[in-house]
């Protein structure tokens, strides 16, 4: 069946039909504006407009309101028609409306008046367009009002204006210099910070090629590069550059470029300049300082070695010649003479030990190596190998629990274990076989630095059943040259724990001890499991 055949069209439900089923059609002479837009049409128009419409006469009495107006007022038309604003509004408001009306009557020109209006409990902003109504002779017979709710529109506009003000302030107050240029390199806009940075006023920059900020050596290459960016639509998002300005000043900048694209308009380039001269200067100073420190460290290390070597020489002579005297003239000296000689030689030997320990102490930081993974269990096994003779001699038992692997300097860990285990064996109770227990566990330490987060730490304990010490001496035992016992009781230079503590601190850890006299001692060492690169460099 042909879809356009009359039978189908006839059966369509949407087209108007007369009572007998024939389609209604408009006669040609009826479809002119003059005939279609008749009174009835205008009435319908006014009444069905979504905008509130009202008519007032010259007395400002309401002649007509449409449905939309009735809804806005919240009243029926019959309650409003014939009344004036004075019947409907507070006196001061009505007076204003009347004044507006009079203006329209006398000026015979439409006016757009913005007002606020409360509708259903909400504040709306409306625009009332009041236009004079003229009779056939052009005389004013009243006015027509149309109300447009511009609340959303105004809010949007206000919002935009507020945002624009904020942005403008951001632009102006920014500490970074900002510049907008076009394809040809002409400056469109700059902020105060930029002017300050380059030492030029706004007027000297806007509308000119951006190359005016440089000295004459730069221009052609820079301009070409600028244009290239636009052609290739390619910019480096962030880079550092030292620029030589028109006044000869050299400044280090951090630069950021991005395209400002608006559809239908020319693309512009936004350049943001950050003056990093201070930072560069500080970096340079830091480099200088670091290399000076390294140099100083090396010198100190060399000095320490040479000093210890040269200090050892005379001590060696004392020992050797002491031996010669004893060998050649021992019988002539007698017991007392030999005893004096012995004491002299022992003193020299002590001094040699002290010098060696001092050298070790200074080398903890001056000769440090990079941190690597160190298996502490293996270190302890090696140390026990070194101390084998002493362990056997004293009949000692050393129990080693599970020990972790941590990032550290292998040699230092060796020294640390050697010292702690050595001490545990040394300070034994007379007649009691030494028992030493090593334990460790890992835990997480909350740090103040957000960057580091919770840090994994290893706690190491070395406990013994030896003579112990009074905890009131806790600070002393870690100090250089400090001893709690006389030379006759225990040998030693008083440096062991000082060296150990320096090692622990070098590894950013802590060391302490718990003890009671006669009840053994427990030394507690806490060390980070891992180190950041910067920590190692310090």
């Amino acid at each position, binding site marked *: 069946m042909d879809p356009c055949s009359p039978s189908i069209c006839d059966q369509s439900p949407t087209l108007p039909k007369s009572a007998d089923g024939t389609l209604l059609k408009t006669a040609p002479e009826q479809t002119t504006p003059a005939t279609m837009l008749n009174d009835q049409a205008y009435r319908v128009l006014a009444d069905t407009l979504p905008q509130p419409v009202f008519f007032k006469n010259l007395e400002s009495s309401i002649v007509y309101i449409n449905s939309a107006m009735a809804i806005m007022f919240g009243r029926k038309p019959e309650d409003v028609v014939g009344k004036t604003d004075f019947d409907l509004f507070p006196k001061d408001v009505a007076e204003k409306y009347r004044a507006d009306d009079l203006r329209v009557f006398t000026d015979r020109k439409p006016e757009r008046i913005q007002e606020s209006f409360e509708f259903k409990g909400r504040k709306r902003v409306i625009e009332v367009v009041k236009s004079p109504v003229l009779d056939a002779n052009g005389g004013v017979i009243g006015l027509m009002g149309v109300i447009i709710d511009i609340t959303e529109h105004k809010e949007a506009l206000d919002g935009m204006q507020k945002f624009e003000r904020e942005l403008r302030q951001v632009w102006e107050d920014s500490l970074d210099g900002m510049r907008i240029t076009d394809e040809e390199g002409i400056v469109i806009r700059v902020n105060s910070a930029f002017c300050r940075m380059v030492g030029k006023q706004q007027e000297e920059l806007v509308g000119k090629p951006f190359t005016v900020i440089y000295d004459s050596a730069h221009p052609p290459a820079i301009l070409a590069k600028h244009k290239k960016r636009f052609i290739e639509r390619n910019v480096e998002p962030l880079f550092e550059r030292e620029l030589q300005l028109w006044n000869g000043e050299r400044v280090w900048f951090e630069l950021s470029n991005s395209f400002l694209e608006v559809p239908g308009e020319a693309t512009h380039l936004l350049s943001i300049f950050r003056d990093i001269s201070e930072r560069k200067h500080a970096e340079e100073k830091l480099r200088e300082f670091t290399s000076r420190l390294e140099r100083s460290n090396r010198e100190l290390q060399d000095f320490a070695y040479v000093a210890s*070597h040269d200090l050892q020489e005379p001590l060696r002579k004392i020992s050797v010649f002491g031996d010669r005297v004893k*060998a050649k003239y021992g019988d002539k000296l007698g017991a007392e003479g030999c005893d004096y000689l012995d004491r002299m030689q022992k003193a020299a030997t002590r001094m040699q030990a002290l010098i060696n320990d001092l050298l070790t102490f200074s080398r903890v930081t001056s000769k440090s190596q990079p941190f690597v993974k160190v298996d502490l269990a293996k270190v302890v096994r090696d140390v026990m190998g070194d101390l084998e003779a002493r362990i056997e001699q004293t009949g000692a038992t050393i129990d080693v629990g599970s020990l972790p692997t941590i990032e550290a300097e292998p040699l230092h860990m060796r020294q640390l274990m050697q010292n702690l285990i050595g001490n545990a064996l040394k300070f034994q109770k007379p007649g009691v076989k030494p028992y030493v227990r090593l334990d460790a566990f890992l835990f997480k330490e909350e740090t103040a630095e957000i960057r580091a987060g919770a840090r994994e730490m290893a706690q190491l304990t070395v406990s013994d059943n030896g003579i112990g010490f009074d905890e009131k001496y806790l600070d002393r035992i870690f100090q250089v040259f400090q001893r709690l016992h006389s030379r006759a009781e225990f040998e030693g230079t008083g440096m062991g724990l000082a060296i150990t503590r320096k090692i622990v601190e070098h590894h950013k850890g802590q060391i302490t001890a718990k003890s009671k006299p006669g009840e053994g001692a427990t030394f507690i060492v806490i060390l980070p499991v891992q180190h950041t690169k910067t920590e190692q460099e310090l």
Partner: protein
Amino acid sequence: MIMKPHGKSITIIMADDDPDDRELAREAFEECRLANDVHFVEDGEELIDYLCRRGKYIDLPEAPLPALILLDLNMPRKDGREALKEIKANPDLRRIPIVVLTTSKAEEDILRTYDLGVNSYITKPVTFESLVDTIKVLGKYWFEIVELPPAENAP
């Protein structure tokens, strides 16, 4: 009894700036019955003068030169390293074996002196007894076991 292939002349020359070390060495040589075969000099300059028959040694007979040089490294005016270099550069002197006897244990010193052609590097013993032992061994090694080059004339 140590063989003296060159007759009753000095066979060992020792350069050391430290008077104590020279004294100890002299005593050690005495214990080894080598005291008459050793001459001591105080620094590298004197050593070269002696070997070249210069300065205060100008009157010494040209032949023969010492058969062994014991050399300390750290000496004033001219140290052991410089002397070593000079001797090994001199065609008339470079055949004489040189044994460095020094307090330095520095790896750098050991490497450098072997680079310069030293025959042996010995760190000075700490006790007198071990010094005596070392000298005994040196004597036996260089004069009984080793074949020395024939006697040299001074340059």
